[in-house]
């Protein structure tokens, strides 16, 4: 395994980078599934009230990035009227959302830059 990684690093670094990105995205999918079942439904019921309706994991998980955005950018959260809510959510919930936000950006870059390069080569 170690030798394989060294070989890939020396001969095909772009592939190694994309594998790292892929791994990060898979961990994010696991994080999102856990978050969906453990926190998201109750959190959104509190946030949206009667407007809450679940569209299933694949649809609901598209909102995680924006929730992370609200935590990172208070101005945006204030504009959306959800600043107080996201300021007061438990630390664990915040952590999951921030992991998703940063992870998607890091994993996405690592995965998609090599993917785009090899696709158009």
């Amino acid at each position, binding site marked *: 395994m170690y030798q*394989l990684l060294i*070989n*890939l690093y020396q*001969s*095909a670094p772009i*592939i190694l980078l*994309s*594998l790292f*990105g*892929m791994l990060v*995205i*898979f961990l*994010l*999918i696991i994080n999102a599934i856990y978050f969906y079942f453990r926190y998201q439904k109750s959190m*959104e019921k509190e*946030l*949206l009230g*009667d*407007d809450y*309706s*679940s*569209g*299933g*994991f*694949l*649809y609901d*998980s*598209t*909102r*995680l*990035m*924006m*929730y992370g*955005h609200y935590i990172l950018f208070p101005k945006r959260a204030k504009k*959306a*009227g*959800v600043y*107080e809510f996201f300021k007061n959510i438990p630390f664990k919930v915040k952590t999951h959302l921030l992991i998703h936000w940063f992870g*998607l950006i890091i*994993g*996405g870059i690592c*995965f*998609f830059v*090599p*993917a*785009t390069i*090899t*696709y158009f080569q």
Partner: protein
Amino acid sequence: MDKISIPDEALFYISERTLPINAVIDFIYENPSQQTIDHFKNINLHLKNGQVKPGQMVIITPPDASYCHQWENVMMEAAAYTDQQLSQMSAAEKVNLARHYDLIQYSTEYVGAGYGLTATFYEQKKKHVERVLKEIERLYKNTLRTNNGKLATKSFFQQRQALFRKLDYAINGMLERRMFSRNVPISQLKNTMGISSKAIMHQWKHQPGATNLDGFKSNYKKLTTASKSFTRLGYLSIGLDIGYSAAAIHEACTVDNSADFCRLTTYSQTGRAAGSIAGGGFGGWATSYVTCNLVFGLESAGTSLLWCTIVASVAGGYAGSQLGSHIGQSSGEAIYEYSR
């Protein structure tokens, strides 16, 4: 029968939540007489136990309009049919159908679902109304939160008045606000009847197959199928991806005797499926985040974004899975090559 012959007053709405029938009657008819109450109950015989349930169709016609009788009968049959279909749906599917009735209708009305979604996409006016309604909701929530549960502040009233003006402007000429010769404030409709800004009232004459019950049944069947598929389409595509790779591996390992070819296919197809899933996930999340939230400036914390999220995440997910499957396959082949 000509479509135009269906009266404007033949209305219905799809309930999003459980409500007592009496509350619905009181709201719709404003101090109704016994004759009006009897009329409502007669045309809504499908509503049992004094309650309206999520997804059920509530028929609304003027109590003394003989010209509506013919259509009341058609709508009653349609309502009975919808109840029959609802019994086969889960609670979440019923709510999804009720809440997104218009969107699902658009997307099933045309042969290509994409066309329907695009048509919805361009409903700028409707989007505007939804946004203003969200703003009003937020104003209430924020004021309650920041003023210890009190609403009566000068700033609140000023902001609310401004938003109501915006709302009036937005819905002007767009929605049927006059019902039985009286104005119905749209916010009141929304709050009292538990119907969303986009559901409101549906005129029977605008329903596909309105003049023919078979046509309605066929259309409604499509709606329920779409509502059921709503939460499952993504999983189906993931399943297809994995299935395709599994089939390719199976074929390579059974048809060809070469162990190397089997191993290479196993690596490359596993990489392809993994890349496709990771790419699809990333593409969907990133595109819906960037287009629906950042560029358009709409809030994710609401259901009004459904159309945008579907269009963006499906397009992004597809592009992502194409790129991902390509790099995934290359990665699988590279791993095979360097692990020999």
